[in-house]
Every structure is written in C-alpha cells, then in structure tokens.
C-alpha cells in the first residue's frame, strides 16, 4: 500500500509536532515555514513566528516567497530593525526554538553552510552563515531539518559554520553559549536526538515503512541507536488537509521538495 502522503509532508508534520506548546520559533522559508504554520493550526496555537528579517508575529496572507516577503510585514505584530531582532529577541533569550538546516552535519550536530572543499579554493561555495551561527548559539534550542544522505551526514565537516555540541559531551558548557543546542534532527526517513552523555546523534524514531538499514546507509559514521526506536505516527488526515488546502495549496514547497 502506497502511503497517501509525500516524504516532504511527513517531514513537515514531524517538524511541526516538535513545536508542541512552543511560544516562539525562529523560522526560514520553504519547508520550515510550512511546518511552523502547521504547528500554529494544530498543537501550538500561541506560537509566534520570528523572522531574521525583523518580523515578529507574522500572519502571512499568502505563502511567503522568502524571509523578506512583504506579506510577512503586513499584519505582523511588530517589525523592527535587524539589530533589534538579533540583539533584543535572539541574544536577549526570547527565541524558544529555531529551525536550521545545512549542507553538512556531523555526529554532534555541528553544521556547515559555508563551503564544500577548501575555504580558499572551494569546490562549492555555499551561502555562508547568515544568522545561523548566532542562532545556533543563542536560541534556547534548535531543530535541524535535513534530508538524509552520505554527502550531508559526514564524519568530518569541511567547515564548521554553526556550532551544535562541538566536540560533544559538555563542550558547550562554560563557553557562554546561552542556548541548549540541537534538540532534534528531522529528516525524510527518521528522527534523531542527542539525548546521551556524549551529545552524539542517535536514531530515535523511524518514519512508517522505513527500515533501520535505509537510514544507516545514508550516514557517514556508525550511527548510534536509541535502545527502543519507535515508529513515528503518520500524518493525520487533519494535518494533510491543512497543508494541502491552507498552507501550500499549489504544492510549491511540498511538491518541489518531494
């Protein structure tokens, strides 16, 4: 039986569920944007969306095309200079959760969005940090959304742009990093956490119909597994309905990423 949802939709649903009861989320466009809006419609009705462009409490009248889309401004609760957003909201400790992604991630949740190859003679020049470096340090927690692949889940980053748990264990402690670090990694096949003393990524849950081997095959190091891996509940009819009829009726995001 083919499931009646795409892997992008499953990712969106899984990400949205991690925001249960959250008050604020720092959000990008595309899939994370839909996940956050889905959470507002379901398990986090008081969730306010914060965009690094300087927007708090956005209420977009259409699917935003970028984090600087004018539809995020119109009808927002507050629109402020970016210095205030990063200084008062993020560094001030008011960002509860933040969604991050990257081209590469290592076992301790450190992210690379800067370069593939050498910095001075790159094979692929990536976008760079943007706000990710300070978000990874200051947001109370981060959620990482990435598709599984050997190229992305690597033994060694080409460049560490945004810190996760650094060398693992208590590496963040005593280094004036106010945030707790990555809580979860949400992929297209499984969910991971870092809930162990080494702060090393571990498989917590599989999506319906996915085997452990399909997951470990995409990871560039011997991945830890939680002692009792569970299966994620598939999207509910309600979740799928909200995504397809309200949040992304043209399939711009879910279609493109599927």
């Amino acid at each position, binding site marked *: 039986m083919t499931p009646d949802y795409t892997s992008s939709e499953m990712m969106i649903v899984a990400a949205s569920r991690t925001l249960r009861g959250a008050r604020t989320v720092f959000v990008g466009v595309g899939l994370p944007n839909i996940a956050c809006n889905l959470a507002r419609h379901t398990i986090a009705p008081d969730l306010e969306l914060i965009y690094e462009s300087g927007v708090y409490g956005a209420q977009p009248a259409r699917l*935003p095309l970028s*984090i600087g889309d004018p539809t995020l401004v119109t009808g927002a609760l507050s629109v402020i*200079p970016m*210095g205030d957003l990063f200084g008062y909201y993020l560094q001030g400790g008011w960002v509860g959760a933040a969604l991050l992604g990257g081209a590469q991630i290592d076992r301790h949740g450190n992210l690379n969005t800067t370069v593939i190859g050498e910095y001075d003679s790159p094979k692929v020049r990536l976008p760079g*940090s943007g706000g990710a470096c300070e978000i990874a340090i200051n947001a109370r927690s981060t959620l990482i959304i990435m598709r599984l692949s050997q190229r992305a889940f690597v033994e060694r980053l080409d460049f560490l742009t945004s810190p996760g748990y650094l060398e693992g264990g208590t590496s963040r402690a005593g280094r004036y990093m106010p945030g707790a670090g990555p809580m979860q990694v949400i992929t297209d096949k499984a969910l991971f956490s870092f809930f162990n003393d080494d702060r090393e990524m571990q498989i917590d849950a599989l999506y319906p119909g996915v085997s452990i081997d399909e997951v470990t095959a995409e990871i560039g190091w011997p991945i830890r597994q939680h002692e009792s891996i569970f299966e994620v509940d598939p999207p509910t009819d309600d979740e799928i309905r909200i995504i397809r009829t309200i949040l992304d009726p043209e399939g711009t995001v879910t279609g493109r990423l599927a």
Partner: protein
Amino acid sequence: MHDAIAEYVRDGLSVAIEGFTAFICFAAGHEIIRQGRRNLTLIRMTPDLIYDQMIAAGVASKLVFSYLGNPGVGSLHCVRRAIEKGIPAPLEIEEYSHYGMIGRYTAGAMKLPFFPLRSYTGSDLPRMNRQISLVQSPYSEERIAVVPPINPDVAIIHAQRADAEGNTQLWGLLGIQKEAAFAARKVIVVVEEIVDQSIIRADPNRTLIPGLIVNAVVHEPFGCHPSYVQGYYDRDNAFYLAWDGISRDQQKTEDWLQEWVFDVKDRSAYLEKLGKDVLSRLDPGDAPTGSLNYGAYT
C-alpha cells in the same frame, strides 16, 4: 541618479547598497555598471541579485557579506563563479554572520572601536577572518566575540519617501539601513516620492534617516524593481526565478546586462522596456495604517 553616482561612487571606493530582501536599489546598481566603475569593495549583508549582476559586470574586486543567496530561490551563480573560478575576475571575500555585519555597521555608525556579540564560539569563521576577535569582560570570566567598525565610503538607501533635504521615512523591513547610512562617509537616498517637509514633520517617529547625513536625494519611482518597496510594489518573483537560469552562464548574463543595463539610458527607459503590465501585476493592494494624533501643543 546619473549625477549622484558620478559624483560619489568613484573607482576603488567601498559601497554599501543596503536593504534586506526589500528596498534593494537596482536602479543605483545598474547606473554603477553603466558608468563602468572598477575595483569597488561591495558591502552588503545579502549580496542578492544586484551584486550578482554588478560582480558579473566586473565592477568589484572585493565583497564583504554574511549570506550569499538568491532569496527563496537558490544560489547566486555569478558570485559563485567569481569566487570558485575567478570569472570575470578574482573576487576577494570577507565574510561574517548576519549579526557580525550588523555589529560592524552599528560600531561604524556609533564610532565605537568594536561591537560585542555572542556569536562565533566554536565556529571556523574567526579562523578564516582574523577581523573577528575577542575581548575580556571586566565583570566576569567571559571573553566575548567582537567585530570592528565598518565605514563604507558610500551608502545607497532606498525608501518610500523623503523631503528635498533628505529627511527620509521608511516602513516595512527596516533591516540595517539606518546603521549603514550613519556609518557611511557619503549617503545617497533614493525614493519613490519626494514629499513636502510638512508630511515628514507630521509623523517624526517614522523618520529613519535625517537629512543632516544625506548628500544626495534621488527621485526614482520603481527604482527597486525586481526587488520591492512595501506598500508601493511587490517583488517580481518571476524575475528572481528567471535569473537563476540566466546567471548560470556568464555569456547569457552578459547578454542580459547588455540588453537591460547598457542599452537602456536610465531607469525610465528600463521601466518603459519592462512595460506597464509588469508594473501593474506588482500592485500590492491596500492595507492602510490609519492616522494617529501627535497633539498640537500650541
């Protein structure tokens, strides 16, 4: 616009055209290309399509930035081509995070020797950019990251309206425009409308940039297309998508620059070529603020 660029944007200077996704003054960027400037240091948090075009046209030798992307679409192919392959010319880069760039502008504007921020811990960025340093707090054990001030030779800021003296009002994404303007040695303000000073004075909290620091005021309606101006027009997303295709190829990019920059005399000619249909497609509709009372206090 021609005169403002000719007077203030000289070869070898550092230039910041700011505006985060919004208010990006393509009209100024195109005029800089048209006037054949060389060896500019381009400063911008998010280089966006405007610097992609300028770098493809060969105006820049250095780029200071924090995020290289075609927002919501993908890569900046021209910037990547310059960094990865030196086409059309090698491009030196100096790279920060967003808050690092914000801090540099802020310190520049406030004439501070440095700006402290909680960032960069454990990141490789400070290894690649020695400008990022540390300072010991006198109140605790903490050593906090700092960035140095930046003072662009010229800042170009687009806004909805200004009076003839350059007292400038802006609503929507305020980005880092105030800081960039105060940090710069010369400021060019480009606006959709030049209004009577009484309109500015009727809502003084809305004034982001005072005429005091402005060297030139340019009236250039639709000066941001394909970027947008809140309440005036929408982003031309079709162009942002199309640029992804054009910009992957240097020759196609140069053909585009020939057609849309070199072969049009100025912004009016560009808008005429663009056509009224595009502009009316970008009409944002109405969402009025309502009026407030400041009180006469006579």
